[in-house]
């Protein structure tokens, strides 16, 4: 007999019975495949959020006027604030405007996913397949494929920006320094920490959001109806923070990449 806890995000934890306890599903469940291409529940939710974002942006973009309403004024305030902050960090208004779409999209995409994750239906609506419950929706931020893909995009953007701004040899000189043994060691450490960003970027986001879901479910297992609600509120806040952290780190690493080698230390 299998019994499933199906609060908001119930897919991560399943309670087979009291003897088996809670088991956690680390990877996104595959619901099917199209021409050998796996379709997972996190992919479906990513498409859903994309559709929502694009639709909202389309409607909003069409309704813009020179005399703004409250929502438009809020969005403009946020955009102007973000660009001003980026210009301060990058020390260039032009660079801030160039990277604003990337950084803002990272924040918006992750933040919306993390907030929608706690809406009813995500994780609780699903299919029974061979006495196994497969949720149709799973937050992409709890799927390492998504966070790693974003980390790779951020990583390549950072490296390409560094090479484009400094030139290949100057940029490579940050990591391969043959002038002194200390310089060589520092360069090597830089190189490793740079590559480590792929792991830290992806696992930070994945770990935080995944752990939050597990915590909410475990809380629901111990004290149903009462404990999960405040924890969900807290996790929604964490979701915003993690979106901000991902976007800000991308911004800071872009800044580090374009700094001249001798200024960096």
């Amino acid at each position, binding site marked *: 007999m299998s019994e499933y806890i199906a609060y908001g995000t119930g897919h991560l934890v399943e309670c087979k019975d009291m003897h088996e306890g809670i088991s956690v599903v*680390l*990877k*996104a469940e595959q619901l099917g495949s199209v021409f050998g*291409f*796996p379709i*997972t529940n996190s*992919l479906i939710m*990513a*498409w859903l959020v*994309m559709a929502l*974002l*694009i639709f909202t*942006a*389309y409607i*909003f*973009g069409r309704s*813009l*006027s*020179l005399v*703004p309403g409250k929502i*438009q004024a809020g*969005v*403009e305030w946020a*955009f*102007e604030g973000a660009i001003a902050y980026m210009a301060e960090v990058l020390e260039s208004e032009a660079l801030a*405007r160039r990277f*604003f*779409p*990337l950084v*803002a*999209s*990272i924040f*918006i*995409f992750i933040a919306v996913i993390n907030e929608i994750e706690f809406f009813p239906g995500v994780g609780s609506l699903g299919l029974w397949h061979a006495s196994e419950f497969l949720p149709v929706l799973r937050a*992409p931020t709890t*799927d*390492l*494929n*998504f966070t*790693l*893909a*974003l980390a*790779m*995009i951020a990583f390549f953007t950072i490296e390409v920006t560094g090479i484009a701004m400094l030139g290949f040899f100057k940029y490579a000189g940050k990591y391969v320094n043959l002038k002194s043994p200390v310089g060589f060691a520092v360069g090597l450490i830089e190189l490793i920490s740079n590559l480590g960003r792929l792991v830290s970027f992806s696992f930070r986001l994945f770990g935080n959001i995944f752990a939050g879901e597990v915590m909410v479910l475990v809380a629901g297992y111990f004290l149903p109806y009462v404990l999960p609600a405040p924890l969900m509120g807290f996790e929604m806040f964490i979701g915003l923070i993690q979106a901000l952290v991902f976007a800000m780190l991308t911004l800071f690493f872009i800044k580090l990449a374009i700094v001249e080698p001798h200024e960096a230390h």
Partner: protein
Amino acid sequence: MQQLFSAFGIDWHLLIAQAVNFGIVLIALWYFLYKPVLAVLEKRQETVAKGVEDAAKAEALLAGAGAESAKRVAAADEEAEHIVSAAREAGNAEKARLLKEAEARAVAVTKDAEERAKEVAARAERESEKEVARLAVLAAEKLLKKHYD
């Protein structure tokens, strides 16, 4: 490594799919959201700058208009004064002319009257001389008649 990938469900198909998803979101938000919003911000900034400039221009224009109107009023004042003084001068000249003319006419009238009086006196004298002569002739006639009778 393979075990790690399989535990987390890492699949290059899904990695690419999610990267493409993000790319689509980036492009769509860029096209539908960032570009129009930033364009509106820029346009508004231009409008505000233009408004400030126009206000400064209008203010300068207003100040200029004040000076211009004061200048015109002063000019009009001056012209009015000219007109009044010219009229006054013309009036005075006319008055003097009329006086002179009246005086001349009075003199002429007086002269004429005097001449006429003189003529009357002369005629009266002539007539009385004639009368005296006639009376003398009469008296002489009377005396001669008496003498010869």
